[in-house]
């Protein structure tokens, strides 16, 4: 505020750099093309025409981790798959975020056995957990919107501002 009133309507918008960066990061967040189990079907459903994730600037799934910002771990992670998931995460460029979609990715779900990692947060740092077995596309989109709100609270040095209540 300020310069708009003084300079008149010249097609200029002023904002802080932090807001601009966070706006661009949260409005075009590209997920990694990456599905492990049945949750991936719901993720595809969320991206399809009915639920239309492209409303949030996320219609484009990158098949290369170098071009992706968001890793949606959709499904159970077996212990043999765990190093691969970690490697994909390490190959993503900063800043990067992780959503653990579904009960299996969040805590192991019904698979409390020798083969499945009990929560993907043992491998990669998780920002948002989405509950459900599998979660409906609405639930995934809700988790994604929560993540967008979190990204909008980021300072330029990577710290988080105080949480804002979603109305």
């Amino acid at each position, binding site marked *: 505020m300020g310069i708009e009133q003084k300079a008149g309507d010249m097609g200029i918008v002023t904002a802080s750099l932090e807001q601009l960066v966070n706006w661009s990061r949260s409005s075009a967040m590209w997920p990694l093309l990456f599905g492990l189990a049945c949750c991936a079907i719901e993720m595809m459903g969320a991206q399809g025409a009915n639920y239309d994730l492209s409303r949030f600037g996320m219609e484009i799934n990158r098949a290369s981790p170098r071009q992706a910002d968001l890793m949606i771990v959709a499904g159970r992670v077996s*212990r*043999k798959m765990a*190093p691969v998931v*970690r490697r994909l995460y390490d190959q993503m460029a900063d800043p990067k975020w992780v959503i653990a979609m579904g009960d299996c990715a969040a*805590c*192991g779900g019904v698979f*409390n*056995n*020798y*083969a*499945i990692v*009990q*929560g993907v*947060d*043992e*491998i*990669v*740092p998780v920002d948002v957990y989405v509950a459900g077995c599998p979660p409906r596309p609405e639930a995934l989109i809700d988790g994604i919107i929560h993540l967008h709100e979190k990204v909008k609270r980021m300072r330029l040095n990577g710290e988080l501002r105080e949480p804002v209540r979603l109305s």
Partner: protein
Amino acid sequence: MALDNATVLGRLRAALPEAILGSTEFRGDLSVYVRPEHIVDVARFLRDDPELQFNFLENLCGVDYLGREPRFEVVYHLLSFTNRSRICLKVGVDEHNPSVPSLTGLWPGANYHERETFDMFGIIFTGHPCLERILMPEDWEGHPLRKDVPLGAEEVAFTFNQDRIYAHKPFAKE
């Protein structure tokens, strides 16, 4: 025409009498118990006999009968396309020396089945070209489908015990 179980068993007993320990029949399905050292001979006879022609190894797996002697069992299912007939071969495997001759020389498709059986039960298939783990990570200790391996991997966190569990859970860092 489908082959009669009695005919199959009769030909097998006539050809390799010392290899057969016994046989059972359940709802028309024939199972034959074979001595471990003779399993390759029996399988080769069933495959190459012009009348039987069990030339397809459908399946090969292990079973753990904990507390029974012998403890393990390897089960082979053979199919004859020509005769529309199936046969099941069972081999008892000792707990202290769990080794069976490999069938990879007869059916190359037995390779992955035997690797999986080795991975899950620790049964050694002698003569196998590359007996390594196939499903579990290389550094996993033990064989997960053995009955003395505990069922649950980790304690489940609820509200009353999550503080204790999360205190030592290996959460990932950046």
